[in-house]
């Protein structure tokens, strides 16, 4: 600002600290002096920053985990017992759904073989388009912040 204000600041910096807000020259000079002196930067209030995703993430509440697992397993066993099913039946029913997918795939392949050449070419084009779109989407970089 004015020379007299700068002079007052230089003579007694602490009471005239507000001068730095208005004078770029003195601000730059003060920053340079602070850098030379190795002064610490202004402290950061960590509590004011948002919670990072990794904070507290390594905590392992075994009571909750074991309790949750035991409750879910107990419900499953009780229901299986009530309906007279064994865990083998559950595995069989899961495999049955896989069998459904397999038969669907077999039928789709048979339909493709039986289709006309034009339809087969159209399927090939669709296959290429979908996979090209997949590659385009995979090329995008993730947005998530540091985990």
């Amino acid at each position: 600002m004015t020379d007299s204000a700068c002079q007052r600041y230089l003579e007694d910096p602490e009471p005239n600290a507000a001068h730095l807000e208005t004078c770029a020259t003195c601000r730059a000079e003060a920053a340079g002096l602070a850098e030379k002196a190795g002064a610490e930067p202004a402290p950061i209030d960590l509590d004011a920053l948002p919670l990072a995703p990794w904070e507290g993430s390594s905590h392992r509440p075994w009571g909750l985990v074991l309790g949750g697992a035991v409750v879910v397993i107990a419900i499953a066993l009780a229901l299986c017992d009530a309906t007279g099913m064994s865990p083998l039946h559950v595995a069989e029913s899961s495999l049955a759904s896989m069998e459904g997918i397999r038969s669907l795939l077999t039928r789709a392949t048979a339909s493709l073989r039986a289709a006309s050449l034009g339809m087969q070419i159209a399927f090939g084009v669709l296959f290429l388009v979908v996979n090209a779109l997949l590659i385009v989407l995979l090329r995008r970089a993730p947005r998530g912040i540091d985990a």
Partner: protein
Amino acid sequence: MRRMLRLFLPLTIAAASLVTAMVAAPPGANVRGPLTVGDATAMLQKTAVIAALLAVWMLAAVALTLLSGREIRYSSLEMRASALHCFALGLVAVTSFALTAIVFSYLIPYHVGVPLLFALGVFAILTKIYGTVAVFHAVGTLVAGSRTREQLARRHWLRGDLAMVVVGVAVLGALRLIPIVGPIIWGFASVFGIGTALATKFGRREPWFLAWRTVES
């Protein structure tokens, strides 16, 4: 406001369950139960199968989180940061898996189809398992995650990746038991999961494809 939102979520789930049960019930049926003993047995058997599968999911989720919690957390974060991209990628990936499976199945008579189909199946199953666990983490964090540092410090149970995954399994498992709506929600979760698993390359920060750069002289 957040407390209201937290109250709102369970109330919404309860209301949705009630409405779905009423809609799914056969016409003229009593809300208290199905019409015949056979219907009740079939419904109970279906519930038993779902509960048993949920128990398997719980064990798998805990094991995977213990093995690679950081990767699961990163994928969960990505899902919440760009949900639409993960969903679009999941839809395209599921379509691609189906079409590729048909093409590989077409190639079975030429002997090359079987190993390719096997590799695709393994990859698809691994993607689904990893992605679903990431969805569990994301749902758990949305429902029960700490918002402030003070809240985090006060908690002894509901903190950490394992707790978030367990809460997510519980919430999505409860939703899975709702007739009609449950499988739809689970299907959406699978699509989200597959999308986020592929978008983050299973939680690793590596690109899927190397960028082409010419050598500078």
